[in-house]
C-alpha cells in the first residue's frame, strides 16, 4: 500500500503573544515556535501504522519554504520513506484551492493507493485542501475521519459528526481521507531519531517542475485574497479579575457563592 501524506508546518500560537506585522496581512513569526500541524501529526502516524500492518511506502509532501524541511524530517523520523517539498516564490499567497492544485501536480507523478491530509490547518483553518485535492485528482474522499480499516481495494472509514455521532462509509481506493485528531497516538520523535534522518535527501520541486505557470499559482492564481488581518476584540464582555492571586481567589469564591456554585 503506497500512502501519500500532505503536511504543513505551522506556528504555535495558542500560548504565544500574537502580533500583527507591518504588512497588516500576517503575524510576526519571529519569536514563535513552529511544529507540524496538529491534525497532520495524526495523519502521518496513521499512514505509518498502516504501512507497518500492510507494507508499502509512505511519502510526505509539504508545500512551503526551506523551514518546512524540519517538519518533513520529523515525519521521516516517525517512519516515512520519502519526503518532497514543493517550493517556489510564486506559490506564496496560494489559497486553499490553489494549494490543492499544486499538491495534485506532484501527486500525479507518484504511485499511490491512499492519500491522507489533516482535517484542517491550525493557521488558516480552511478545512478545504484535502477535499479539494480529491476532486482535482478525480478520486473519492471522506473528511473528518477517525477510524480506518483497509479491505483489499476499499477502505471502511468512520467520519466524526457533531455530538460524537459517527457515519460509516465504504470507499473505493485510491481515495483521499482527511484525518481528525484522536484517531491514534502520534509517536514521540527523539532528537536521536531526527538526527538519523538528517542526511536524507528531501526533493524540492518548483512551479516549472510541475508545469505550473506563475499566473495559475500564488496570489495571482487564487480566487480568495487576504485583505487584512486584525486582532478580534477579546474579553470586551468579560470582567477581568485583577489583583494579588489571593484577592483573585477571594473574588472567585464570592462569584461562585453568588452564582450558586457553592452549596
Amino acid at each position, binding site marked *: 500500500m503506497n500512502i501519500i501524506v500532505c503536511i504543513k508546518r505551522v506556528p504555535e500560537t495558542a500560548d*504565544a503573544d500574537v502580533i500583527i506585522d507591518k504588512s497588516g496581512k500576517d503575524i510576526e513569526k519571529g519569536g514563535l515556535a513552529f511544529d507540524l500541524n496538529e491534525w497532520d501529526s495524526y495523519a502521518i502516524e496513521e499512514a505509518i501504522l498502516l504501512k507497518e500492518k500492510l507494507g508499502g511506502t509512505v511519502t510526505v509532501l509539504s508545500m512551503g519554504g526551506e523551514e518546512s524541511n524540519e517538519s518533513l524530517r520529523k515525519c521521516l523520523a516517525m517512519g516515512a520513506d520519502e519526503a518532497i517539498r514543493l517550493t517556489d516564490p510564486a506559490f506564496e499567497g496560494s489559497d486553499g484551492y490553489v494549494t490543492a492544485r499544486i499538491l495534485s501536480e506532484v501527486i500525479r507523478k507518484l504511485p499511490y493507493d491512499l492519500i491522507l491530509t489533516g482535517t484542517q490547518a491550525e493557521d488558516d483553518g480552511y478545512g478545504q485542501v484535502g*477535499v479539494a485535492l480529491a476532486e482535482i485528482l478525480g478520486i473519492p474522499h471522506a473528511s473528518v475521519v477517525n477510524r480506518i480499516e483497509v479491505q483489499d481495494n476499499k477502505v471502511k472509514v468512520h467520519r466524526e459528526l457533531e455530538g460524537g455521532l459517527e457515519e460509516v462509509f465504504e470507499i473505493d481506493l485510491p481515495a483521499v481521507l482527511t484525518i481528525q485528531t484522536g484517531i491514534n497516538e502520534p509517536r514521540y520523535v527523539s532528537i536521536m531519531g531526527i538526527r538519523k534522518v538528517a542526511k536524507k535527501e528531501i526533493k524540492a520541486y518548483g512551479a516549472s517542475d510541475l508545469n505550473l505557470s506563475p499566473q495559475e499559482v500564488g496570489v495571482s492564481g487564487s480566487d480568495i485574497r*487576504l485583505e487584512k488581518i486584525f486582532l478580534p476584540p477579546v474579553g470586551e464582555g468579560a470582567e477581568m479579575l485583577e489583583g494579588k492571586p489571593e484577592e483573585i481567589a477571594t473574588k472567585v469564591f464570592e462569584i461562585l457563592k453568588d452564582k450558586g*456554585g457553592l452549596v
Partner: protein
Amino acid sequence: MKEIMVVAEHRRGELRDVTWEMLSKGRDLVERIGAELSVAILGKGVSPMVDLLKPKAHRVLLVEDDLLENYNSETYEKVLTQIITDRKPYLTLIGHTATGMDFAPALAAHLKIPLATDCIGIEPEGESFLLTRQLYGGKVNAQVSFQKKGPFMITVRSGAFPAIEKDPLPGEILPILSSISGEGLAKRFLQYVEAAVGEVDITQADILVSIGRGIKDAENIPMVKELADLLGGALSCSRPVVDKKWLPKDRQVGTSGKTVKPKVYIAIGISGAFQHVAGMKGAGTVIAINKDPKAPIFSVAKYGIVADLFKIVPLIKDKIKELKKTKS
C-alpha cells in the same frame, strides 16, 4: 433576478440549526442586494422539513430520491452540480460543519467557483462580498475577498449568525428530478454509530470545571478535579485532553462532543476555539482562567483571570476550603 441559495443541512429527519442561521443571513443579504432566496433540500421523505423551510425562502428546491436517504458527498455533489449549473445562483451558502466540510470544497473545485470557508461575517461589497474569517484558532480575524466575479460559494460557521424571525416568504416548492444512479458510486454509506455513553453525564451538571491542553499532563488532572469536587461539580474538558486519552470522550465539550448549559462553567487552560465554545456558550456564568490575555475564551467569559493555572487554582481551592470552614 439574482438568487442566493442555501443548502439545507439535516440529519436523521431533523434540520440542523446552521440551516436556520444561513437562511436568516441569506434573507438579510437578498434584502440588501435585491435578490431572491432559495433553499435546496436533498433527501428522502423530507416533506415535514419542507413545511418548516417554506416560510423562510422564496423557493424550496426539493430533490427527493431514495439514494439521498443518507448524506453522501458523492450524491450531494452530483445533485448540487446539476442545480447550480441550471440555476446559476449568485451565491451558495453551505454550513461549515462535518457535512459541509465534506462536500463544499469538492463541489466548488468541480464547478470552478471560488469558495471561502468558515466565514463569520459576510458583507455585500459592490458586485461581490467581503468576508470575515478566523485564523490561528480564533486569535486573529481576517478580512478576505473574492478575486473573481460571481457565482460564489461560502461555508458558514455554525452559531456565527443569529436565526432571526421575519415575516414569511412565499416558499414556492420546486421539485427537481435528480439524475443520480446507485451504480458506480465510489463511496457508500453503511451506517451511523452512536456516541458511546459514559458513566458521568456532564450535560446534567450545574457546575463544570473544564480543562484544556494547558493542563499539560494527565498527572495534573487530580489537582483540578479536586476543585470540581469542592464545588460539587463535574470535570469536563476540551478535545485535546480526550485525544491524548487523559479523559474519556464523554467528558468532551464542543461541536464533536457535548453541548452543556451549566450554571457555572470554569474553563481552565482552554483557548476557546469555536468548536469548543459552541458547546458551552449557553452556560450561565463562564469563568475563564488562561495565562494568555488574548485567548479567545475571554470573549465568551463573564469573568476572566489572566494567570498561570498551576498558581491560581490551588489558591482558589484553599480559599474555598478556608471560607467553607468559617461558614460552618
